[in-house]
């Protein structure tokens, strides 16, 4: 069976946003820093709303931050 998983580039996007801290990003989208950490590690898939908020913070299209890829 073909399996997909959600891949994110949040860490990379933070780096190119003047090394934005996890805390800063967390405060902007209304989650805890630990949730940002879990998202970056791929241990938690955020809701659509939070995923869109992350894309808005980085000012880029949704699919530049989150993609659905083959395992």
């Amino acid at each position, binding site marked *: 069976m073909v399996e997909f998983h959600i891949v994110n580039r949040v860490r990379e996007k933070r780096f190119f946003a003047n090394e934005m801290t996890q805390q800063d990003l967390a405060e902007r989208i209304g989650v805890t*820093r*630990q*949730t940002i950490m*879990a998202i970056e*590690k791929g*241990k938690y898939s*955020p*809701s659509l709303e939070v995923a869109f908020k992350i894309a808005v913070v980085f000012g880029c299209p949704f699919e530049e931050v989150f993609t659905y890829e083959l395992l």
Partner: protein
Amino acid sequence: MDMSFKEKSAWISLFSTLGIFGYYFYNIALLHGAPAELAKEAALELLLKAIILSVVVEVIFHSVLSATNYKAAEFGSDERDKMYEYKANNIGYTILVIGVMLTLGRIIIVEYNPDFADHNSSMQIPLLTAHILMFSFILSEVVRFAGQIFYYRRGY
């Protein structure tokens, strides 16, 4: 280990529940074979002590946790906290319902067969039905806190 406020809170609740009610059930088990009236009094005293101690310990530890993490305490839960809480609650609730059903079954069996309980129960402990119900409740709480911690550690 980098833990969120809610995860720390779950650890506190898990350890305080395990410690206090572990001691409670250990002492209840020791009442096996004790004179009925004496055991009833002792069981009631133990229950009151456990409940009061549980409230006091939770209040003290959560106050310290909130004081040292006041920003996180003010923020409350985010969507990940709520989802893990919801999933852990589901498991805990299932265990509680099973416990309640077993207790109901025991009440009905004893009601229709009064001799059954006396002759077949290996635990001659007064208020046994209440203790079984209490055990189900505490077990469901332990599983609920452990479930939350499990999801925080493993991710979902």
